[in-house]
């Protein structure tokens, strides 16, 4: 019997507002404990919440970008549970009138497109953080009250890989909207997963488990894979799956039970009487829509169409908005219609330099003009070889010098003149008789080896194409 998994994800995002959801306290990360608190976010008696309008706008913006219907009227509710990091012992959240509903996000896995429906996007406040010490626990309320966006999918995801793809695409979109940092390590993105298994083709859903405590996208993928396997094995061995919440054990790489349905909390939701209903007009939604930039999917399609990029290149470039903007600026400045060489340089050598210093490519200190000059010298004028070009690029990043002056000073100009290369070619043929024989016997690889030897002799300055041509002529 074949099984299939049914997965739904709940993503929590910290919204990137300057102040908290219902008070004026700063949301800055990493400040001394309890230095960003006030009577409101501490839930002191008599204090009252006031909605942060920016947080509300961000929530609408995310809803629109995720193809949701923004509700004309939105309501906040109280969700009750006792926990020492929750100052009021209830969380201001949204129950039956979230900011937006019924959206979708299209993902693509192995070139097969898939639509993941989004059930709801709602706004709520975060709780504080417990710090456990040997004999006591301390609470830091800096995080309490930071606006959270909860994005809930329908159970449309059918594999851990698809879940990973959904999360990557979602993160990508949210980053484009600039409403969250989406940093799982800092806790600004958290993900819970609901998963069940059933026989392939069954209509009814199996009993689900809710997975918590994953701290990376890979963690989500691994936890799901483990849990699906566990559930299938359980069913196979005649066991029964119980509805429960399970924790992903990061060390043991397995899911462990946390609480069963019987122990589930009764949150006693009811409308938050301290906040009015919030209404949003079509005009206001249109205003927010204007603020939504071109999203990665559209951008990628446009890059393919306008700049002739491959799907692969486009996808890499749009994965990060600042990189995409950076790339586009350079595509526009590149005079040729074919932008492929520019894309290659960005994704290849420049990305390598950036990642070795752990920065975005847009932060590498090379001006657009200088970069394009180098690309022109390598690709069009063939003044230096590709290999030399990469070295020049590194030098440019380190010193800020221009490509032409580095090439001039270091005497790196490519040797394309046949006469100037004859001598080196003679020596290489003499020294590598075996490879010469191999080539003559039809081994093409041997030719590449000989080209490499010539390059070595000329310290990389020889034009490899010319060398290859000359060798073929000599040995042919």
């Amino acid at each position, binding site marked *: 019997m074949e099984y299939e998994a049914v997965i739904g994800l709940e993503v929590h995002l910290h919204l990137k507002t300057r102040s908290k959801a219902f008070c004026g306290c700063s949301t800055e990360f990493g400040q001394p404990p309890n230095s960003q608190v006030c009577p409101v976010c501490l839930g002191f*008696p008599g204090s009252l919440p006031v909605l942060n309008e920016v947080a509300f706008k961000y929530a609408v913006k995310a809803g629109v970008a995720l193809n949701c219907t923004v509700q004309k009227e939105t309501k906040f509710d109280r969700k009750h549970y006792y926990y020492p990091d929750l100052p009021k012992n209830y969380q201001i959240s949204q129950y039956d009138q979230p900011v937006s509903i019924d959206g979708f996000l299209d993902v693509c896995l192995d070139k097969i497109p898939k639509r993941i429906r989004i059930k709801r996007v709602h706004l709520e406040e975060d709780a504080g953080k417990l710090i456990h010490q040997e004999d006591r626990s301390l609470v830091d309320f800096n995080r309490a009250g930071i606006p959270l966006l909860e994005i809930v999918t329908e159970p449309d995801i059918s594999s851990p890989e698809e879940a990973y793809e959904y999360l990557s695409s979602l993160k990508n979109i949210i980053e484009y909207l600039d409403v969250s940092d989406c940093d799982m390590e800092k806790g600004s993105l958290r993900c819970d997963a609901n998963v069940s298994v059933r026989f392939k083709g069954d209509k009814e859903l199996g009993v689900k488990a809710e997975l918590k405590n994953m701290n990376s996208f890979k963690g989500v993928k691994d936890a799901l894979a483990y849990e699906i396997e566990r559930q299938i094995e359980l069913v196979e061995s005649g066991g029964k799956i119980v509805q429960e919440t399970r924790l992903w054990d990061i060390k043991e790489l397995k899911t462990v039970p946390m609480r069963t349905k019987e122990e589930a909390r009764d949150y006693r939701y009811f409308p938050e009487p301290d906040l009015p209903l919030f209404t949003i007009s079509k005009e206001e939604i249109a205003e927010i829509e204007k603020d939504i930039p071109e999203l990665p999917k559209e951008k990628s399609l446009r890059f393919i169409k306008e700049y002739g990029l491959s799907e692969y290149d486009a996808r890499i470039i749009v994965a990060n908005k600042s990189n995409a903007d950076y790339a586009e600026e350079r595509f526009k400045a590149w005079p040729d219609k074919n932008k492929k060489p520019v894309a290659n340089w960005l994704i290849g050598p420049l990305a390598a330099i950036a990642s070795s210093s752990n920065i975005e490519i847009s932060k590498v200190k090379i001006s657009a003009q200088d970069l394009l000059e180098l690309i022109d010298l390598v690709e069009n004028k063939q003044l230096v070889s590709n290999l030399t070009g990469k070295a020049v690029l590194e030098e440019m990043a380190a010193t800020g010098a221009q490509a032409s002056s580095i090439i001039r000073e270091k005497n790196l100009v490519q040797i394309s003149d046949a006469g100037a290369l004859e001598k080196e070619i003679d020596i290489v043929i003499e020294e590598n008789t075996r490879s010469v024989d191999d080539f003559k016997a039809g081994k093409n690889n041997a030719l590449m080896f000989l080209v490499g030897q010539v390059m070595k002799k000329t310290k990389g300055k020889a034009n490899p194409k010319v060398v290859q041509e000359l060798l073929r002529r000599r040995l042919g």
Partner: protein
Amino acid sequence: MDLNTLTAQDLLKKLDSKEISAQDILRSLEKSIKAQDTKFKAYVRTQDFHLPQQSIDYSKTTLKGIPVAIKDNICTEGFNTECCSKILEGFHPPYDATVVRKLKDAGAFIFPYKTNMDEFAFGSSTENSCFGPTRNPHNPECVPGGSSGGSAAAVASHQAIWALGSDTGGSIRQPAAFCGVVGLKPTYGLVSRYGLIAFASSLDQIGPITKDVSDCALLLSIIAGRDELDSTSVGSKGCDYSAYLEKDIKGMRIGIPREYFVEGIGPEVKKAVLDAIKVLEKLGAKCREVSLPHTEYAVPVYYIIATAEASSNLARFDGVQYGLREKAKDIIAMYKKTRDLGFGQEAKRRILLGTFALSHGYYDAYYLKATRVRNLIYQDFINVFKDCDCIVTPTTPTPAFKIGEKTGDPLKMYLSDIFTISVNLAGIPAISIPCGRTEKGLPIGLQILSRHFGEGDLLRLAYAYEQNKP
């Protein structure tokens, strides 16, 4: 004449003419409190604070240093604000309620003694205070009403010039009626709730308790107005309600709801209110019978909504950050022990009721249904106010009852608010003013209701009656 027996308006005249100083008023009140504190217990923790000897310069302010007494559930920076509950023992808020800040800005002196109340405003008699009950100044055997019994008793016994109370289901008006003073519950949203320790957020309002209508208008003018810190506060800067007091009431349309004059109403109360209506008619008001058909549902609806909200609002009192904390082996045990010892019986009863009403599987049958009926009660008023300016009713069915008389029967106690509760459910304003006494000398309250933000009409009618009553 002792200064403590005067109204704020009278004192202002004397302060204006430099006949007296703000310090003189304080001294006079101090004397009065010393003489009556043990007898009536209008205030709590009178031993813990001392009134200042030196008065600051109030000469350029509106209120010129006239003291205001504040109910123990309204936050006063640096002073105890404990809701007369053991669970908030020692709580000194690091902030003033908006009303307190407004009063300070207007030059009021904030009394460091807070007025006694039913724990978390849960009650109608001020018997549910962890500091012990307040007694009625007109008869110490009787309750002063509640939950703002301390504020009403303090004003009635001249231990305060005026005071602030809070009203969730009648907690200003009922004690005002029992103590023979004026008490007003403003339109929901007119006065900021910021700093009022919440009982039921959708019903609570802070309001004045004063010796006469003129003081009531003045105090309301100072505390009313939109507050950025309270999202449910509405209206602009507020207005000068004293301006309404000059007008006559000729042609004012007054509704007398038949549902308020049924069985259970004391004969003396009924007679006093009907007499008052005659006075109003004589002044040119047009009175006629009206109907508020959903009145009978007000008490059950109220006790579902108010307890549901209370159970949520009181969840934060858990011993973690402030107030009482009982030592225990783990966090759950600490919660349980702290809340067990910290809350009184009535608080526990209401938390249980409210928790039940919000529970999974019961929400629709109780809370949701109650909110629907609440809307019907609201509609009743909207309909009546289509052709009425005000509604006149008794404030309470009977005058002040004996201490201990209803403590054993919560339902009986709840029913003493039967005439005041609808007003909170509908969010409209209402005032209680004295309209005579029983044979035994207990005060009777006349309640006047008006449409949302109809405080002007309300005060105008109340003032006209006050000036012309026999």
